[in-house]
């Protein structure tokens, strides 16, 4: 699974370069995110702007990362399209993840909060 990775003020910004996060890519996605955590990245923004479909396999990968970060770090999501956001709302994971409309908003909240 291809990811675009940048850093801004010490914050890791990950943009999955896929249209779908389902069981065919979820394990690879999870493994790549875990590598970042193992290498010391603890403040992460995941930009989902290019993803137009996510299912429970993708959600499970995100939750696992959130649990692994725990209280040592922070993770924010941004730029979810309507369909992707509705899955987070359906599963109530929008109450667990902090979701921002823009990448700038997510970065700002990490700097100020």
């Amino acid at each position, binding site marked *: 699974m291809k990811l675009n990775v940048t850093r801004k003020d010490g914050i890791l910004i990950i943009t999955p370069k896929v249209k*779908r996060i389902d069981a065919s890519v979820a394990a690879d996605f999870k493994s790549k995110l875990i590598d970042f955590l193992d290498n010391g990245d603890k403040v992460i923004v995941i930009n989902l702007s290019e993803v137009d479909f996510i299912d429970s396999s993708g959600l499970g990968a995100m939750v696992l990362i959130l649990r692994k970060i725990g209280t040592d770090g922070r993770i924010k999501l941004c730029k979810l399209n309507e369909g992707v956001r509705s899955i987070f709302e359906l599963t109530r994971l929008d109450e667990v993840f902090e979701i921002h409309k823009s990448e700038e908003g997510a970065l700002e909240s990490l700097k100020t909060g």
Partner: protein
Amino acid sequence: MEEIRLTFPRKVSYLYFATSISKQICQQIQECREDKKFAADVELCVSEACTNAIKYGRSSEREDVISLYFQIHADKLIIKVQDKGSGFNLNSLPDPDIESLPDRGYGLYIIRSKMDDVQYSQTEKGNFLTMIKSFKGEHNT
């Protein structure tokens, strides 16, 4: 009633194939064309059901495959996912408890939420997860 059957190897690489077909089928149904959310819900549930079948439907038979049936009725779409694994008890799987932040268990919850009815049966021909969505059901708003 018209029925479309599809059989594919029990491999995760065929997931996109299955969901793409579901979208194509929905485009053929006038009620679905008029309601984009219907097709999106079907695509999501087909992905969830096929993922479960691919993960847990391992067959001891030489042909390890998943079958997908789309039955188009006047008032509803019935989707059946067949695998030949050991099966499970649909009622024994609770909805995920968000407070404990589980990383699995959302699939069936999503299916139950998006479909009007969900049934599971184990027969000599295999396990069938049946998902029913009415064209004008209360979930189709």
